[in-house]
């Protein structure tokens, strides 16, 4: 048994997890159309490799990764590509982005899937390739391509793999459910991940508000043999224990330094959903096309966890879950702490959609208007990253880039604990997000301006060089022409006349 540590700060919002009945998963029926965004992950958008009107099978790759940090997109069922065009996507901006629209034919015919029976026969590099081909990106919320994360751990030896089943955000029970219904899949996926990175131990991290999940995982660990040390660790519930850096501190007592990665401490952290996706990709050869989504909130008649094909429009899901539009105050993609409001319910479920929340006005009253900061300091006590939220707030308002960076704005994980405790209801996180945005913009501008300056100077130098070359050529031509004329006439008559005149003049001067 490892010793569990505590993190600084954190909050205890009402959990509301029982609402969505964790531990049971309902298969979502196939919607009439699937909207598959080309960018469901952090990094570059994938590039479509299918044409409009083309018939595709389930599991077929529709768009391939461009560049290193990117992920493939696959068809969740068989059907016809109806369009490749802009469509509203799940994003805080509410903007549209390029999506592939797939009309399912209802037959759900799949490609022949080729898995590996014994992953230990394969090399870690082959397994990473399989994971990359399956289009897996982190399913906990951030959506960083998993293959890239595994490759990044190449540089340093890894001793610990953490499977993150913390799910500390209120309302969400997707990981809880997954741990209860498919503990064997999580264990197998974790074994594969540990094999790839060469970890010697696997820690399954579960908060103590999910005893059934912890019990299911423990049982599955007991039932299977393994060459690595495995342990299911439970620890007291607190938000945001599930943040990667926070979880590492809870389990190991070590802090990931600012600007460093967990890999620098010999640790890799993966979500439970990601582990199952890895298992499916390697063992079954199945790409990532479905995920478990928690549909919850008191504006739904049937809140539950659904296994949903990626690309399912949220409005379709809501209709299945018995959505009472008149009772709902708003719709949220993700959890109540870190999610964002949905403007348009036509947006689809993507790889990072762990929850769709439809609360009533009583559950989520509209935010009272913000009052002045009274400098109470509650936010600094709540911050799990040991930052000074109040200072950051003042500097963000003043747009003081230097001070924001000095106060480590970029270590803010945007968990919202500071805003939750703020008695003046200041939307602190929004200030930090905006500040991060303008700092990023100004960094990009700086790089651009340095490049343009270098190019401008290079051009100036070139123009000058060319002018000099022209001048030199002209001078050479002139000299050549002159040489030619002197050769042509042995003695220039005009020059001779001038010389004679000069001679006469000087003679006169002498006589005078």
């Amino acid at each position, binding site marked *: 048994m490892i010793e569990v540590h505590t993190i600084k700060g954190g909050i205890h919002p009402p959990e509301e997890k029982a609402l969505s009945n964790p531990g049971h998963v309902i298969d979502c029926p196939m919607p009439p159309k699937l909207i598959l965004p080309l*960018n469901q992950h952090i990094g570059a958008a994938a590039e479509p490799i299918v044409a409009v009107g083309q018939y595709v099978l389930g599991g077929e790759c529709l768009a391939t990764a461009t560049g290193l940090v990117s992920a493939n997109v696959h068809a969740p069922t068989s059907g016809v590509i109806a369009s490749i065009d802009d469509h509203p*996507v799940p*994003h*805080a*901006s509410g*903007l*549209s*982005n390029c999506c592939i629209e797939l009309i399912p034919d209802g037959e759900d015919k799949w490609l022949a899937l080729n898995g590996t029976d014994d992953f230990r026969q394969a090399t870690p590099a082959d397994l990473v390739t399989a994971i990359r081909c399956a289009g897996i990106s982190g399913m906990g919320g951030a959506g960083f391509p998993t293959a890239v994360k595994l490759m990044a751990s190449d540089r340093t030896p890894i001793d610990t793999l953490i499977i993150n089943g913390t799910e500390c955000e209120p309302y969400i029970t997707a990981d809880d459910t997954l741990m209860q219904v498919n503990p064997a899949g999580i264990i197998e996926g974790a074994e594969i991940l540990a094999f790839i990175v060469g970890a010697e131990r696997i820690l399954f991290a579960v908060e103590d508000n999910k005893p059934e999940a912890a019990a299911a995982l423990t049982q599955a660990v007991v039932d299977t043999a393994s060459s690595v040390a495995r342990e299911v660790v439970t620890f007291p519930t607190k938000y945001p224990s599930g943040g990667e850096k926070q979880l590492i501190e809870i389990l190991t007592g070590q802090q990931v330094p600012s600007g460093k990665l967990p890999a620098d401490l010999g640790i890799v952290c993966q979500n439970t959903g990601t582990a199952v996706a890895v298992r499916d990709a390697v063992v079954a050869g199945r790409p990532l096309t479905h995920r478990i989504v928690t549909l919850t909130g008191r504006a739904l008649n049937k809140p539950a966890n659904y296994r949903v094909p990626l690309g399912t429009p949220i409005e379709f899901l809501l209709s299945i879950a018995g959505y009472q539009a008149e009772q709902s105050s708003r719709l949220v993609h993700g959890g109540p702490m870190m999610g964002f409001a949905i403007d348009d319910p036509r947006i689809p479920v993507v790889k990072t959609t762990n929850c769709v929340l439809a609360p009533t006005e009583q559950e989520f009253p509209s935010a009272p*208007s*913000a*009052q*002045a900061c009274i400098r109470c300091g509650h936010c600094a006590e709540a911050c799990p990253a040991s930052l000074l939220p109040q200072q950051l707030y003042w500097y*963000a*308002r003043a747009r003081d880039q230097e001070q924001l960076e000095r106060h480590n704005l970029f270590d803010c994980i945007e968990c919202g604990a500071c805003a939750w405790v703020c008695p*003046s209801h*200041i*939307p602190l996180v*929004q*200030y930090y*997000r*905006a*500040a*991060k*945005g*303008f700092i*990023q*913009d100004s960094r990009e*501008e700086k790089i*651009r*301006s*340095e*490049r*343009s*300056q270098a*190019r*401008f*100077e*290079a*051009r*100036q130098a070139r123009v000058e060089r060319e002018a000099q070359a022209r001048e030199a050529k002209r001078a050479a031509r002139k000299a050549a022409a002159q040489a030619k004329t002197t050769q042509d006439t042995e003695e220039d008559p005009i020059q001779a006349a001038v010389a004679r005149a000069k001679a006469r003049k000087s003679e006169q001067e002498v006589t005078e």
Partner: protein
Amino acid sequence: MIDTLMQNPTGIALLALLGLGAVFGALLGFAAVRFRTEGNPIADQVNQLLPQTQCGQCGFPGCRPYAEAIANGEAINKCPPGGQETIEALASLLDVEPEPLDAEHGEEKAPRVALIREAECIGCTKCIQACPVDAILGAAKVMHTVIADECTGCDLCVDPCPVDCIDMIERKTGIQHWRWQSPDVIASDRVAA
């Protein structure tokens, strides 16, 4: 000799001062030659703050010449691409009052890039010659195109084009360039204002 000097304290003082003056003068003279700064350091710092669009809207042929002019006392509010932010940065560097942008030189616009309507391009190379950062690719009598990543949005290629086939479009559109906006001012501030 020493006796005469002893009787003349004013002379000693004068000699001592002259001596000191000569020594330190020589030192300073040596330092001025040995540690001479190349170029104008203030102009360099100013140049760092300018946006490097090289558009010439300030009336100088590029950012560097304008930076040198500012170092010699030119007004700091003649740079529309830099906008108010650049003016404020310059004001704090030079310790002067920030002024509003001089409307005579243009207004602040969102960053733009040039886009050649390629079907209409006749391949005259006039825009290539006008581009201050060599961001247009092409040759005589073949189609030209803008390297969008290198384009500073300076506008200088638009006028020389004999067939008007160059458009200036906004650079930062789309979801990747979207940024969170700062919240509105807080309620109590609104009351006070």
